[in-house]
């Protein structure tokens, strides 16, 4: 059974006096146990909104989120349903996701209580050790730690609830390069070791390429391409996937400039007609402005929402001038 399953999700933000913004417009993805799913796209593509809807922090206006066989209920003022405690979230900014006025140990104990346990200093120590923090961290406060260490505290707190799935929203983008690598490695190790599902949301394609089993590429609220990570990188089919890959600067000393993608992500309150990517697409045909492309499976587990491209885009779309 699929661990976390999102289907045809639509999430709309309503602001009084403004047109509603549909940040997620019919997207879906699934996470299996022990699987690492990378979710990538530019800022404003709806990937964080999708992540929040996955854990019930946002209520979708249509579509379903099912975790472990039970529909995920959007959070209300009441306590979160016990069935959802195994679905945990890690946020981008460990400076605001931890309570500055409570000790690290107390905050990890919160997770334990959620899992139905009593306060347990021994277990807290184990968790701190597991995330490679000094055991004396339990009595200290978040401000005493660096960004990378704080993110480890947030991970320990999530682990205390004995999760079977973690949604991590840009968990490493606020960290320094070497801390990025160590926090990403920690999350991967935990997913493998505890047979957890991990939805890893990031704008950093290079890191997703390195750690994710499958990758979903999102553009303006819809899913452009989804497939096994190595396949997607080696043989991308969607022009947007190709453009994202071309834009990543390589630390190879070559002095080669990455390829920009012209234009910005359009305003989701007024998305382009037809294929949402067509105004920026170097391969767009007149029909792309009219017809909404359907995502079709082109190989087992590899699907793409572009009717124009029939062959893998193994070379860059814009040669270096």
């Amino acid at each position: 059974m699929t661990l976390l399953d999102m289907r045809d999700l639509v999430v709309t933000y309503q602001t009084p006096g403004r047109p509603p913004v549909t940040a997620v417009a019919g997207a879906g993805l699934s996470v299996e146990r022990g699987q690492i799913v990378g979710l990538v796209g530019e800022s404003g593509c709806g990937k964080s909104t999708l992540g929040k809807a996955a854990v019930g922090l946002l209520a979708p206006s249509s579509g379903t989120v099912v975790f472990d066989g039970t529909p995920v209920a959007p959070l209300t003022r009441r306590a979160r349903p016990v069935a959802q405690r195994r679905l945990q979230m890690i946020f981008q900014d460990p400076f605001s996701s931890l309570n500055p006025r409570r000790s690290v140990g107390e905050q990890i104990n919160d997770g334990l209580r959620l899992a139905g346990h009593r306060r347990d200093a021994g277990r807290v120590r184990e968790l701190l050790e597991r995330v490679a923090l000094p055991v004396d961290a339990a009595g200290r406060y978040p401000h005493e730690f660096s960004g990378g260490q704080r993110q480890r505290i947030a991970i320990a707190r999530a682990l205390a609830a004995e999760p079977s799935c973690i949604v991590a929203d840009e968990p490493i983008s606020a960290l320094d390069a070497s801390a990025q690598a160590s926090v990403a490695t920690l999350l991967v190790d935990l997913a493998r070791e505890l047979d957890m599902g991990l939805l890893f949301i990031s704008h950093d394609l290079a890191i997703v390429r390195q750690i994710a089993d499958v990758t979903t590429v999102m553009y303006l609220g819809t899913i452009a391409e989804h497939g096994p990570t190595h396949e997607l990188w080696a043989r991308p089919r969607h022009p947007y996937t190709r453009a994202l890959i071309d834009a990543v600067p390589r630390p190879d000393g070559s002095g080669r400039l990455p390829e920009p993608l012209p234009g910005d992500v359009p305003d989701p309150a007024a998305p382009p007609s037809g294929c949402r990517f067509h105004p920026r697409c170097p391969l767009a045909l007149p029909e792309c402005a009219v017809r909404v492309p359907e995502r079709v499976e082109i190989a087992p587990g590899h699907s793409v929402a572009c009717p124009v491209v029939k062959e893998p885009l193994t070379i860059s779309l814009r040669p270096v001038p």
Partner: protein
Amino acid sequence: MTGLTGPAAASARPPFPGSVPGPVLDVRDLTVTLPRRGGARMAAVSGMNLVLRPGEIVGLAGESGSGKTMTALAALGLLPGGARTTGEILFEGRDLLSLSQRALRDVRGRDIAMVFQDPMTSLHPMLTVERQITDHLRHHRGVSRAVARARALELLETVRIPGPEQALRSYPHRFSGGMRQRIAIAVALACDPKVIIADEPTTALDVTVQAGILRLLDRLRRERDMSVLLITHDLGVMSSLADRISVMYAGRVVENGPRRTVLTAPRHPYTRGLLDALPHPEEETSELRPIPGQPPATGAAPAGCPFHPRCAWSRASCAERLPDLVELEPAHSAACPVDPFGPAAPVGPSGPSGPSAPAGPAGPAGTAGPSFSPEVPA
């Protein structure tokens, strides 16, 4: 701010060596100290040397707290209150550290301009784009409003803002992050500066937008023979733009050299560690290898080589003596007496957490040598 000359400054190189064009910016033995509670001082930058030639892009790499930004702020006279400096920062032969605030105001924005990480905070939200560009021009160049406006329009075209006429009348919030950064660059270019200091100019942007800004900076330096001091922790960005790279750790330069050399055949274990910690888009299987431990807080660098507690190749002597930056080959120097990746016999990493044996000699290719162990000590 005082321009006390450090004892080592006298040993510096001649200002205009031979056939190479003279530096436009020459940082000599710069030290920046900040006050600490209780009256003591801590060093944010120590013994920094850096040369920027016309039309050149020099990168300053390192983690947060390594002193990259402090170096830039010192050049602009924008250090936080209480900061003290020694050494020299020569701009066209004049020491910026000994200039009065008034004289510095003339240099800042006119000869040396800065582009910051977040264009939303560096642009004034209540002023039109036109005002932000023309204020600069009118102050430094004393030109008429009409001339300044024509120049502003030209600048927006240079940085490729669509609809420049309308953009001049707009406020910063109307633009996306990438467009705002283009506007911030237009503001920096207003007085035709000789040097632009760009502090993490693309860190807040998406890769697709970042690529456009990198191309813009590269085009500007080619077209205008402008020099750029590029500060970033992103070695991918560094690799795309910089001609030479200085890697900083705990306030000191630990390695510097040509881009290709530093990124493909680094000689300092810290540079190597930074590279190993990166995902390499071209390699499919390699795992991430983080540098164990944490960088020290400002002013809390350990004795000896500041990197030794995190270094897989450190020896007992590393904890005692602060290594000098030594020239290994022309234009390439590193501050590591162990030199584990040098042409001399490769040395296996020492210490309990190091890998048991190096995978092979680290030749100039620099991709096959020993790496850090992925373990992070508790």
